[in-house]
């Protein structure tokens, strides 16, 4: 892709950022900025605020399941409609579960890890002064913020927030009388998702165009860090997989407000009232939703794996193992991710032949994924591990990816899934994968690149404690939920105590709830460390971890426009274990002194 014209062009620094120059006012510099670093940080801050909301909702869920009959007097004052008399209403519980999932998937992990770090890292790591389309990038953030605010607003409308699950299956999501959350809350949910997709399209387009068109000279595709590869592939997957949900959202809105019958079947009776709809297909929604939903999982998890792969070498002081095969694994996973969505629908009455097909392709995904995981493990082989905070989180990614991934083997198999579908086994599995792998990678990235972003170090001691307060309870909660699922505990149930066979899971639920509260409490330590370090952290040098990629060759924080002159890249991103004047590594731009 790098034409000679382009090489010369970018060497002379011509592909200059179109953003405001540093002498411009506060508003253009920090609020309406087109600088990819500011936009990345805006995404990260927005995502972290949304994570606080999502975690509070998780706390509410666990209070209900851990102590089912307890009266929470203080909470009833805070949320008089949700917990009248201190006990949660079933409708509120459903809204809380729905919004917890929606916010964590789309507004925490997507914003912080994918859009936040994607924006911050990709231009720096490809040696560009900014994204290919800086104004579009700014627009992407503002639409994303509007999407998040819209979603939050749904808590305050008549009937409360959406309550049909983060998957919004009709008829529950299509008929306002079905559940209070399906009144205005569901409409707002759909509009917010449409905004999210519009924003993601703008961001994804930018990442692909940036990687293709403004790579520094010498930076061939096969010299890119795995971080850039993972964002690049995730962006392409997102661009292709998200539009169908826009189509589905349009049709669901029409069903909800204009009396059409895309998803609503004939003969439906809701709240003792027969609906006039004819012939619609609720399964059609499931197909369209999961055509987005499953690739979305990979849009989140690929960057998590890429980031972990790039954090680790700085602490193993050796190259990653099997770089080329890892890249091709990412490509293979991306392709396969587009054709496996049906494994979410094994119990929908699909033909056994379709089920067999979806089982086979799903199990086929485990081949490249396992190769990738083995490459990560082999990267540790013979390393003198330096267990700094980012390294701990990156190792946590491998641990959760391995153990959580095993559950996928059961769920990808139609026969086993029939039994496990919609039980806590599924909840445990996906929390370990798109919850845990991505969350640990997000924290790893925050600790690793914090010095670069803000020019200060975070506290190591607090960071390590935060790791253990995150990893241990997280693993406890979701490992145990697998067993709850094996015992037949269904997900999304508000009062499991109403069923005899689930009475004996009370103890397990209590332990899970206590672990969840420890987990959430542990995050306060992170917040305190983050905010304290922003203002009072030790000053960071240009390259505190002794890492090789291009962002570590510029000041911390990098100046506007990133590079004074566009760097000339001379090697791949994993040149560790060789002696140079910088230490036991060679930055990607380093050239050995000419002999003679």
């Amino acid at each position, binding site marked *: 892709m790098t034409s000679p014209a*382009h090489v010369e062009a970018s060497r002379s620094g011509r592909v200059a950022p179109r953003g405001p120059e540093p002498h411009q006012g506060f508003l253009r510099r920090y609020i309406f900025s087109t*600088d990819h670093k500011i936009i990345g940080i805006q995404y990260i801050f927005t995502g972290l605020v949304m994570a606080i909301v999502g975690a509070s909702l998780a706390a509410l869920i666990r209070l209900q399941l851990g102590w089912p009959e307890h009266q929470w007097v203080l909470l009833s004052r805070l949320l008089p409609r949700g917990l009248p008399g201190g006990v949660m209403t079933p409708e509120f519980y459903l809204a809380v579960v729905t919004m917890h999932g929606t916010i964590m998937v789309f507004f925490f992990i997507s914003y912080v890890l994918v859009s936040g770090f994607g924006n911050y890292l990709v231009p720096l790591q490809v040696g560009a002064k900014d994204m290919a389309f800086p104004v579009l990038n700014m627009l992407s953030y503002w639409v994303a913020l509007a999407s998040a605010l819209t979603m939050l607003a749904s808590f305050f409308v008549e009937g409360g927030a959406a309550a049909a699950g983060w998957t919004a299956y009709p008829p529950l999501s299509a008929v306002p009388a079905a559940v209070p959350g399906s009144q205005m809350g569901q409409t707002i949910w759909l509009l917010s998702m449409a905004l999210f997709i519009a924003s993601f399209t703008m961001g994804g387009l930018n990442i*692909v165009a940036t990687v293709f068109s403004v790579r520094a000279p010498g930076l061939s595709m096969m010299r890119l860090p795995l971080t850039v590869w993972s964002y690049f592939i995730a962006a392409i997957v997102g661009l292709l997989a998200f539009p169908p949900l826009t189509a589905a959202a349009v049709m669901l809105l029409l069903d909800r407000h204009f009396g*059409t019958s895309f998803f609503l079947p004939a003969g439906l009776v809701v709240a003792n009232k027969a609906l006039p709809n004819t012939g619609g297909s609720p399964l059609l929604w499931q197909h369209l939703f999961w055509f987005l939903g499953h690739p979305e999982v990979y849009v989140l998890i690929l960057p998590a794996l890429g980031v972990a792969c790039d954090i680790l070498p700085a602490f193993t002081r050796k190259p990653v193992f099997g770089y080329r095969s890892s890249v091709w694994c990412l490509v293979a996973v991306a392709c396969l991710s587009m054709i496996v969505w049906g494994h979410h629908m094994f119990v929908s009455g699909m033909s056994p032949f379709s089920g067999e097909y979806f089982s086979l392709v799903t199990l086929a995904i485990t081949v490249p994924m396992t190769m990738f995981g083995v490459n990560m493990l082999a990267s540790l082989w013979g390393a003198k591990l330096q267990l700094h905070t980012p390294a701990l989180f990156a190792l946590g990614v491998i641990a959760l990816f391995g153990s959580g991934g095993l559950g996928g083997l059961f769920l990808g198999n139609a026969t086993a899934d029939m039994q496990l579908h919609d039980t806590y086994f599924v909840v445990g599995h996906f929390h370990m994968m798109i919850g845990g792998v991505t969350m640990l990678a997000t924290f790893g990235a925050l600790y690793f690149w914090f010095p670069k972003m803000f020019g200060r170090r975070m506290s190591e001691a607090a960071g390590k404690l935060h790791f253990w307060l995150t990893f241990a309870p997280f693993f406890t909660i979701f490992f145990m939920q697998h067993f709850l699922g094996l015992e037949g505990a269904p997900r999304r149930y508000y009062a499991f105590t109403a069923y005899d066979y689930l009475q004996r899971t009370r103890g397990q639920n209590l332990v899970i709830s206590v672990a969840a509260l420890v987990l959430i409490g542990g995050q306060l330590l992170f917040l305190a460390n983050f905010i304290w370090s922003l203002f009072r952290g030790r000053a960071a040098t240009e390259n505190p971890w002794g890492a090789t990629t291009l962002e570590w060759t510029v000041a911390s924080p990098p100046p506007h426009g990133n590079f004074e002159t566009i760097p000339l890249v001379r090697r791949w991103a994993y040149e560790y274990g060789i002696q140079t004047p910088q230490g036991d590594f060679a930055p990607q731009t380093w050239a050995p002194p000419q002999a003679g």
Partner: protein
Amino acid sequence: MNLALLPSAGAATDAPPRLDPRRAALVRQQQVRLGLWMFLATVAMLFAAFASAYLVRRSGSDWHPLALPRLVWVNTLVLAASSSALEAAHRAGRARRWTGARAAMIAAVALGLGFLAGQLAAWRLMTVRGASLAASPQSSFFYVLTGAHALHLVTALAVLAWTAAAAGSARRDPHGWSAQMSVCRTFWHFLGGVWLFVLALLLLS
């Protein structure tokens, strides 16, 4: 917030080196073309989703064939004429006949607007005939597909109108204008193709 912590707070050290505008424009054009094609890929996926929904819904028991108003054929011709006008503008630009290029661009935009007006009239005709949005699944799809297509067309028309307006200064920057024309042609002909696809789908019933 301590502003010194934030990235751009550093001293302005990046005074850009001397620029070569011709090469800069070339890279920019490559980027815009790449961006456009990726955007069109998302549009293709959107219509693929509508089409698959259409095919699934078509197998329902309540599916009744629906006669499209003849007007849609006239609209199709108008859209084809608009595409031809765009091509004429492109050829005129290459021959440096700027007055002709501008006139052809204005014709393309006007015909595009004519298509939209025609589509609106087709909607009214359908409603008058009783084929409203919620009347039958086929009519629901008629409005959704034509509506989604029209919304994309409005965006493309804005790009066309902007290029038509730039025709005045094209004499000074013929390369810039021809790059803009290339975006217009890809975008507009692509949406023309999408319209033929939508029309074929609606005729399936």
